[in-house]
């Protein structure tokens, strides 16, 4: 039993669970699962940046917000169908990502992080102050659900209920996972990892680091924008308070606790941080306090996060297990 086969088996189990969940779960837990899906898309888009370029963005929630607001503007004011607004809001977010990247990606380390935070805060202040378009601090209510569509073999789907929305979100979760996986496990991925490990050296061997960084930053913003569009039309309500520093920090916490530089780690982190407060009602007030404390403990004692711990466990016990099974 090698690690590849474990990966296949666990992804098939994962798929099956996701497919069965909506038919066994009551309404509210299903809602949480759908929200987890949106966070998974977001966290994976950031993980591409953080895990594979090695730069920490503290303003990623801004792209989430840009996607949400532009999608709402296009459907509610511009009369676009949701199915046109969804990709377009991703592209608008991507354009912002490219432009912000022109400035911020020239910086490294804390300067990059603070620069992204600066852009995100300016964007949030525009959302708060540009009342005509954004509705100001009160936000926008009564955002329509995705339009009905007719698919071959399945027939007409209406998105009034939770279940079709859930599947819509998870389809995009899989698209995101697939794209991130393809980027990382390609020749391009090796170039990206080289940029992370040593930018100066990568430049010396002929990798155009700026080009790759801009590309990754734009892709990352694209998926965050998609997540924003899905979020807005799923919740039917948005306000600038969903796209602030706290949300950007949440994303960083999810990645670090889950495990930087892996795909499964941030997914675990996103699901954990969305579901945990619901299971532990008693600690709800202490939620952020506990997350902060966990972040400190993880970065000092287990910088690999949960994914790193799991890998250590399988590395230690799997060989023993397989030799036993073999004999």
């Amino acid at each position, binding site marked *: 039993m090698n690690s590849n086969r474990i990966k296949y088996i666990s992804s098939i189990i994962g798929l099956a669970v996701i497919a069965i969940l909506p038919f066994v779960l009551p309404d509210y837990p299903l809602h949480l699962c759908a929200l987890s899906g949106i966070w998974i898309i977001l966290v994976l888009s950031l993980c591409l940046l953080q895990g594979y370029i*090695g730069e*920490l963005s*503290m303003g990623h929630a801004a792209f989430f917000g840009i996607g949400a607001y532009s999608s709402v503007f296009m459907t509610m004011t511009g009369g676009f169908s949701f199915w046109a607004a969804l990709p377009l809001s991703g592209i608008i977010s991507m354009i912002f990502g490219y432009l912000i990247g022109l*400035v*911020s990606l*020239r*910086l490294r*380390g*804390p*300067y990059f*992080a*603070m*620069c992204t*935070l*600066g*852009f995100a*805060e*300016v964007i949030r*202040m525009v959302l*708060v*102050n540009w009342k005509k378009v954004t509705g100001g601090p009160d936000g926008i209510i009564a955002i329509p659900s995705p339009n009905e569509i007719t698919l071959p073999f399945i027939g007409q789907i209406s998105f009034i209920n939770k279940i079709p929305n859930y599947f819509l979100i998870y389809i995009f979760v899989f698209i995101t996972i697939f794209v991130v996986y393809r980027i990382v496990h390609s020749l391009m991925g090796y170039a990206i990892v080289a940029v992370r490990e040593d930018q100066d050296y990568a430049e010396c061997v002929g990798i155009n680091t700026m080009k790759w960084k801009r590309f990754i930053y734009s892709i990352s913003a694209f998926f965050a924008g998609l997540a924003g569009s899905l979020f807005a039309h799923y919740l039917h309500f948005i306000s600038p308070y969903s796209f602030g*520093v706290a949300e950007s*920090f949440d994303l*960083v*916490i999810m990645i*670090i606790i889950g495990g930087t530089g892996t795909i499964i780690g941030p997914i675990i982190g996103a699901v954990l941080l969305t579901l945990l407060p619901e299971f532990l009602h008693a600690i709800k*007030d*202490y939620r*952020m*306090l506990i*997350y*902060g*404390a966990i*972040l*400190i403990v993880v*970065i*000092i004692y287990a*910088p690999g996060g949960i994914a790193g711990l799991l890998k250590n466990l399988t590395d230690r016990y799997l060989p023993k297990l397989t030799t036993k099974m073999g004999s």
Partner: protein
Amino acid sequence: MILQQLVNTLVLGSNYALIAIGLTIVFGILGIVNLAHGEIFMIGAFVAFFVVNGLQANFFVALLAAMGSMALFGIIIERGLFRKLRGGAEVNYFILSIGLLIVMENAALLLWGTDPHSMGLRTSAHVIDLGSVVITTQRLIIVAITVAIIIALHFFIKYTKMGMSMRGVEQDFEGATTVGISINKVASFTFALSGALAGAAGALMGSLYIVQATMGFSPLIKAFTVVVLGGLGNIMGAIVGGLILAAAEIFGGVYISSGYQEAFSFIILIIVLSIKPSGLFGKKQ
């Protein structure tokens, strides 16, 4: 009107300089951007608030209490947390300080709620009227204390043995170790100094405005902007940067838009980073 704004700029700018110097010495000497710096500022303000309102003590006692307790706090977080990461990737320091920021802000929110508190010093303040400019003695004292602290710090770093060790570590980490400077001592001391400066800034600002659990994040951003403006580890630069930022906020707030007042520091930060990332007075790296 303009003269009055200039006086306000001096008060606000000197405070920004004080916070920024605490941030810049830890960044310059140890390579750590401590995002929890603003939260130390906030807790310093609360210490001063409790000393003034709980113990009914003099404000100067409160100021010293805030500085002393935050210096101790600085030593604790250096020994207990930051030292454990030494030698690892720099980004880990950054993430650690995010964790610390979240823990401190939320602990303060749970302990003291979201309500603003006032030290009640404003009403007793004496007003000096110079015709077109009005300044309270309280503000004058605040500027005087800030200037005194900065001058004391300058002489400390220039002439004492510990100050020289700190500069040694800043210039060459390994070289400093080779000539027998204890990195642990310097690191602890730098954090203590940084904490004391943040505590002092918190106490001073808290006496002028309000004391609140959420008051720490905005000074952090401003301090970082000032550090970028003035160049890393540059105390003179931090003073000039503090005044520039305060002027931009006050005059921008009056003449452009008060809704975006908070955005000015971000916009300045972005502009400086995109044009001259080493700061106005920084050396080229």
